[in-house]
């Protein structure tokens, strides 16, 4: 029996379509079909000036937007040779890590939802996300498409009381993460549904170009924040979380641990944050010198890369974006044949894909 899962399915997180061939409930073949959310981002940006591009990137991975902006902004800075002020770097790190936590919360909720715990943990995840989102709203002026990072720093300085509010939030979070773990980890059915489901071995994951928590759950501790420190990440003390097994439970566990580490980074950054300007002296319209640059950063979902080819004009000649969701999804699709249908749903959900990023 051939069955369409998606594009209009409660558990495909957007508009992913997987055509599965079933034998009973056993999946014989699973073919993902992409492109339902394709907006031609890479083509659109060729007609935009450099300062107009971050809002478009916000609309790619709409759950961890600031992480998208960062790669591009840093690529532009690298090509233009801009020096970002200290304060801006620290604010960036704080917001990025908050953004990562938000993204993991937004993963945790729907994941339990797909396991069949309808609504409960989902709303806990969204509740915590909401608190962080309020901070973002005050800081950037938007709730979803922040458009806050720009080459040379930030669009504007953080509002009064940012540090207090951020540290209050960060101090609150460890208890919240404990609460989430307590909520699901001792739950026998949750364990039954996640432990040993969709095991991914590290080498296969690497071969498919998987990255982020998905890769680290398979026991390969690759984290660009540690391996190729960008921004000011080399000044913080945090550890790269990895787990063995590569099953759904490991992916869950890695994300939970990672949030704790993010909280640590935020707390350290808040302590060290200096005063000063938040934007280097640049103009809105800049011309990049002729050349090519690739900048990659550790996105909430993995390695997010921006590759700019400049012909010396005000607009990029080409902007290639590497989306972690896409490679992770492709890697996870090898796991699907041989599974039963509920496990397929759980595995796809555990990868944490955002279709806006996959399809671009």
């Amino acid at each position, binding site marked *: 029996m051939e069955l369409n899962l998606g594009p209009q399915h409660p558990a495909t997180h957007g508009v992913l379509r997987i055509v599965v061939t079933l034998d009973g409930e056993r999946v014989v073949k699973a073919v993902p079909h992409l492109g339902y959310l394709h907006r031609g981002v890479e083509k659109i940006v060729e007609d935009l000036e450099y300062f107009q591009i971050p809002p478009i990137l916000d609309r790619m991975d709409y759950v961890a937007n600031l992480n998208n902006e960062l790669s591009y902004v840093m690529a532009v800075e690298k090509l233009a040779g801009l020096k970002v002020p200290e304060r801006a770097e620290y604010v960036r790190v704080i917001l990025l890590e908050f953004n990562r936590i938000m993204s993991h919360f937004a993963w945790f909720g729907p994941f339990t939802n*797909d396991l069949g715990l*309808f609504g409960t943990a989902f*709303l*806990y995840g969204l509740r915590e996300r909401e608190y962080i989102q309020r901070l973002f709203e005050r800081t950037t002026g938007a709730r979803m498409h922040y458009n806050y990072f720009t080459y040379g720093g930030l669009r504007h300085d953080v509002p009064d009381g940012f540090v207090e509010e951020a540290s209050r939030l960060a101090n609150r979070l460890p208890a919240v993460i404990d609460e989430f773990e307590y909520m699901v980890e001792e739950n026998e059915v949750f364990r039954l549904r996640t432990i040993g489901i969709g095991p991914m071995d590290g080498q296969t994951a690497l071969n498919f170009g998987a990255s982020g928590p998905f890769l680290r759950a398979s026991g390969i501790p690759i984290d660009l924040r540690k391996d190729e420190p960008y921004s000011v990440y080399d000044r913080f003390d945090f550890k790269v979380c990895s787990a063995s097994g590569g099953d759904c439970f490991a992916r869950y566990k890695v994300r939970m641990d990672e949030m704790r580490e993010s909280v640590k980074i935020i707390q350290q950054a808040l302590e060290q944050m200096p005063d000063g300007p938040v934007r280097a002296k640049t103009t809105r319209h800049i011309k990049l010198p002729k050349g090519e640059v690739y900048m990659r950063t550790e996105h909430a979902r993995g390695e997010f890369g921006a590759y700019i080819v400049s012909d010396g004009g005000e607009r990029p000649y080409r902007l290639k974006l590497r989306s972690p969701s896409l490679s992770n999804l492709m890697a996870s699709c090898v796991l699907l044949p041989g599974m039963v249908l509920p496990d397929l749903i759980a595995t796809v959900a555990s990868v944490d894909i955002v279709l806006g990023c996959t399809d671009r």
Partner: protein
Amino acid sequence: MAIALPFLIALALVIFVLSNIVFFMWAEFKISGRVADRFGPMETGRWHGWAQPLADILKFLNKEDIIPANADKLIFRVAPFVGFIPVVMVLAAIPYTNKIFVRDFDIAVFFVIALSSFTFVSMVMGGWASGNKYSLLGAFRAAGMLLSYELPLGLAIAGVVMLSATLSLIGIVQQQTVWNIVLQPIGFLVFMVAMQAELQRSPFDLAVAESELVAGYSVEYSGMRYAMFQLGEFFGLWALASMAVLLFLGGWHGPYLPGIVWFFIKFYGIFLFLAFSRVSVPRVRPDQLMDLGWKILLPSALVNIVITATLIVLVPHYQVPLAVSEFVILIAALYLMRRVLK
């Protein structure tokens, strides 16, 4: 008059149960809301959204009725009735106190168990007749669940039947000087788990499984036909929760308060348990469900029967040894299971 009386009683009971169902729905909205750290309905009817279920029913009445072009139209239309009529028939056999009951059936236990499994038949019919792949998968899951959970449910009750030596529900309650939950803890646990499966409630809502099969067997149903499936489920909940109260929790026995009040206190206790378990546990996988049914519940129910029968026959005052041995075995088994699962 004598000919019309049963019809009047039936109508009165259906309306009474329906009004309770409206309350169930509201309570479930509120409980699942509170558990998920939100309020649940707050607007409809001003006071804590009390009118939300009524508004839902009105909405169901207003919904367009769609029968897919390539559905098997006859079976598609009949299926909701197959789910609904048997659970209404069950109401005839359920006593509320030793004075308030419709009829005292001498095989009431058998009757209720037999009829309440018609829900699965309606699901298989509806799911198959929809001509949709999701609903077909849901239908077969329902069939598999019928195969797995009918047995533990029946066998768990067999222990109670042996204790009271009658199949009449009134008789069983009158025998319970000590509540059967004390004498039959294993039976009670098996019954509660099997009951949730029988009622298609989360964590066993596999035939619906909205995150996997969209809406399972009821994908193609809309409007009032869909509502009839839901009503059938709630009537089934009424029947099986009453059975749990009557068989294991001493029915209307209880100090000070009148029997009917005790009955409904216990009944709503069971309902609360169901409502909470629905929002706190993820859904199990079909094969795990079958494993649970065949490899854990069925053997435990059989062990329960063997212990009960042996002690009743061999020991003159069997109550205390029975309760003690059942509790010991239960706790040992739970401990072992926890060790294995870790």
